[in-house]
């Protein structure tokens, strides 16, 4: 590429100043992992998944999904180098498969990310309620605690966002250390017996394979954010790819080991124990060895982990809406920020309104916050992200079929073809296994509501794109270019279209 080979004759003040702000591998890995929330997955999703599905092959599922995502990432990070707005799946779809599918993908992404977000409110309430009982002897309804967490996230969302980064970073490191320590402690529990079940590869071909894979995908959500920094990494060809593979490997290793240690320590009755103890399983097992202090610390971190995940996802959603608002795909109001802080205010407020609605709905209906909100919402969001990754994989192929650039055969075609085939297989298994995943009767409402919702939203997005093409060609032309493009903003559109933003 000519732009990267230009060699300044003498030290350029401009190049130096811009390079100072550029991110290295560690910073990008850190950012990606902070959206991943390790403790939420290991102590929340894994035991709940064991209880709901009765399936124990989760470790091998984490490893298999890591391999598939790594193969997918080869083409994904390669395309990220060539397009604007690389942080969002819909940008790839818009530029690889056309703008109508791009808008469909953007709406699917909004739905999926919002499902994660509301799921975390349910999880927080359900997990915090018994802990508050234990610590303070007070009985508080789950939804009161969920609303408290919601209010915190809502306030942070419309205020300064920079503060959150440091807090998240500290929490993340403590969390990873704690998951590792508890898992090692599991190895010395009296009933520990190295179990082969979590690592049995045949569980990925048997009944319920799709359910395992979706649970595993849920654990990786956030890895796709690495490419947000394509344009500001130290070395665009190395930093982001390396950070992506490292993050995937770290997540896979940590989760697979933790799940294996937990299942092995619990022994043959692990599923029954998961049903009886829920998320407590992770803590109960290791606390035999580590004692009460570690237990309390673990519990406290579990709650902060959930809050960290909420804040981080809330910000991702608000920025997604901001980007779409800037493009004019969502109302322009979403493209506004608070001038003093740069926080994407309206995207944040909209997310908070949705979160409040869901918490109130579950409270009024008396639905179960742990299984029906946290687990269904989280894995339902996981299905959405799996669909998005699959479509994006096609988009990478479509893009490189038309733009050869300076990428190798493996980056343009080899890995994307392989990744697409694997992802199609996973998507098929996921969609046919929803009953197992949710622990409900085949054909019952939850099994078709989730895929139907994604289908309807995707279709509505496609239709909206066609409406824009007919009525507002200027907006249509900018779909997928994001907030960074000077040709899409409200001002430019107002100049060309005659409408005011």
């Amino acid at each position, binding site marked *: 590429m000519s732009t990267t080979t230009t060699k300044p004759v003498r030290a*350029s*003040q401009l190049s130096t100043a811009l390079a100072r702000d550029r991110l290295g591998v560690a910073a990008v890995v850190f950012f990606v992992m902070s959206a991943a929330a390790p403790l939420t997955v290991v102590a929340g999703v894994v035991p709940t998944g064991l209880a709901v599905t009765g399936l124990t092959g989760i470790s091998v599922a984490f490893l298999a999904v890591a391999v598939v995502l790594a193969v997918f990432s080869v083409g994904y990070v390669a395309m990220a180098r060539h397009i604007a707005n690389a942080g969002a799946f819909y940008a790839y779809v818009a530029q690889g498969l056309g703008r109508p599918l791009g808008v469909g993908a953007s709406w699917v992404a909004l739905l999926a990310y919002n499902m994660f977000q509301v799921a975390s409110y349910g999880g927080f309430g359900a997990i915090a309620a018994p802990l508050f009982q234990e610590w303070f002897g007070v009985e508080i309804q789950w939804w009161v605690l969920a609303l408290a967490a919601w209010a915190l996230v809502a306030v942070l969302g419309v205020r300064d966002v920079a503060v959150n980064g440091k807090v998240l970073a500290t929490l993340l490191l403590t969390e990873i250390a704690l998951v590792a320590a508890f898992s090692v402690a599991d190895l010395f529990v009296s009933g520990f017996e190295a179990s082969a079940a979590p690592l049995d590869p045949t569980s990925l071909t048997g009944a319920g394979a799709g359910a395992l894979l979706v649970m595993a995908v849920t654990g990786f959500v956030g890895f796709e954010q690495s490419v947000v920094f394509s344009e500001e990494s130290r070395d665009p060809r190395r930093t982001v790819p390396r950070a992506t593979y490292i993050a995937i490997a770290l997540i896979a290793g940590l989760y697979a080991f933790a799940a294996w240690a937990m299942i092995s320590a619990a022994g043959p009755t692990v599923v029954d124990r998961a049903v009886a103890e829920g998320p407590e399983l992770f803590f109960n097992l290791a606390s035999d060895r580590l004692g009460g202090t570690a237990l309390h610390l673990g519990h406290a971190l579990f709650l902060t982990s959930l809050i960290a995940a909420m804040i981080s996802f809330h910000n991702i959603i608000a920025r997604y809406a901001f980007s779409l608002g800037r493009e004019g795909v969502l109302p322009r109001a979403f*493209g506004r*920020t608070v001038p*003093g*802080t740069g926080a994407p205010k309206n995207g944040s407020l909209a997310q908070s309104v949705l979160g409040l609605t869901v918490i109130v709905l579950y409270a009024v209906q008396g639905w179960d916050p742990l299984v029906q909100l946290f687990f269904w919402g989280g894995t339902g969001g996981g299905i959405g992200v799996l669909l998005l990754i699959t479509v994006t994989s096609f988009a990478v192929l479509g893009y490189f079929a038309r733009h050869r650039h300076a990428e190798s055969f493996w980056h343009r075609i080899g890995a994307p073809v392989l990744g697409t085939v694997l992802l199609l297989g996973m998507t098929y298994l996921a969609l046919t296994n929803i009953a197992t995943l949710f622990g409900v009767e085949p054909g019952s409402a939850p099994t078709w509501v989730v895929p139907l919702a994604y289908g309807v939203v995707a279709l509505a997005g496609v239709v909206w794109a066609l409406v824009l093409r007919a009525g507002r060609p200027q907006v249509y032309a900018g779909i997928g270019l994001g907030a960074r493009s000077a040709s899409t903003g409200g001002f430019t559109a107002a100049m060309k279209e005659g409408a005011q933003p």
Partner: protein
Amino acid sequence: MASPPQLPLADDLFLTAHDTVKGRSLLSPATLGLGLAVALLGELILWRRLDLRDGRLTVLDDRPTAEAATTAVLGQMLREEHHRQIRDWIAFLGTGVATDLVERRLARTGLVHRQERRSLLGGTKVTFVPADSMTAGWPASRIRTAVARGELLDVPDLVFAGLVLATGLDQHVLVTLDTRERGLLFDQIRRRLPAMLQELVGHAEAAVGDAVMARRA
């Protein structure tokens, strides 16, 4: 009432971006920096020293301008001739270079005062605050009055209005405009602002959006 003389674009933007009572910045440092960066480049375009086309800047005339801040930017551009993408220059000047130049220019004319405040951690924080709330409020009220009276704004004021919109400052200083007045303002910008300067404002908006997406805003 005699109107104060019209200040350079970046000075107008700096004063408008500061609270007239307490002197606090209404914009985050990053957004203010990007806005002032574009304003200085805008001044150079108005001085006919620079041209902007398809995201690339060209130096038309390398003679210094009549004042130091824009001359410094122009000098830097002449030294770094392999960098011509406007987005690189906005990013570079936006790191604090532009804010620094504009603060010094305003301090020289006495329109802002240097204020030192001791922070809790022991360091001193230097801020520049408008010396006079009348002058600080003037640029925005000039726009509001002209729009309300249906008068035409000159080209520098149209760029200024564009930058107020691009940085989100309109949420503070143009909120009183009703829908019709807002429409009139846009109409003027659309019809009377040269394409090159429209593109400039578009880059300002995009740079601010970029900062929001990358969590730098």
